[in-house]
């Protein structure tokens, strides 16, 4: 059972279109982190959202943390071919004094020219 469900797992759209990726859980997280991963490399942090209802923008990317801190979304406006990649959400849990990240399955995004 996946603690953090990410959807869709695959998305292929045309350049210029908008898209939204969702991460949902029944658990409450102390924060939600979004990473992007390129082939042959490790994930790289895009943003961390901490407060319920928080919205952060990174150029054409908008990240939102749900009010109850159980879910998050990533919205990309006017997608570009350079947005192609694997996007991962990760919920942070504090267990026995240590931070542990729980990752969603990932969304493999392809932006076609």
């Amino acid at each position, binding site marked *: 059972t996946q603690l953090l469900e990410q959807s869709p797992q695959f998305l292929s759209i045309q350049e210029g279109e908008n898209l939204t990726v969702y991460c949902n859980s029944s658990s409450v997280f102390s*924060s939600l*982190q979004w990473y992007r991963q390129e082939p*042959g490399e*490790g*994930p790289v*942090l895009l943003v961390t959202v901490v407060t319920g209802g928080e919205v952060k923008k990174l150029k054409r990317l908008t990240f939102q943390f749900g009010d109850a801190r159980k879910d998050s979304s990533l919205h990309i406006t006017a997608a570009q071919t350079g947005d192609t990649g694997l996007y991962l959400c990760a919920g942070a849990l*504090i267990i026995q004094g240590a931070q542990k*990240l729980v*990752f969603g*399955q990932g969304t493999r995004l392809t932006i076609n020219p």
Partner: protein
Amino acid sequence: DAGITQSPRHKVTETGTPVTLRCHQTENHRYMYWYRQDPGHGLRLIHYSYGVKDTDKGEVSDGYSVSRSKTEDFLLTLESATSSQTSVYFCAISPNFDRYNQPQHFGDGTRLSIL
């Protein structure tokens, strides 16, 4: 970029053989983590360390052991490799514990194939 080096980057071995993967950091970070990445599962935590000689299990620890004798090195060992352990393994580091959860910085991974 965070100074994290994983070695080897690629390894092919046979079922039943022992395998050790190394993660080396130059950031003097307290926390180190080992994950495996498989299609459809994202990254799953194997083991983590919160200091020298202080380690604990993650969600998929069966068949794996770890050791951390120095701040900069975190070793992952497969005592007797099985085909189900074919995966891409990532090491990650983060600094001192922070309530608002500082991000983890990842190495570039080790692609391990067990035949």
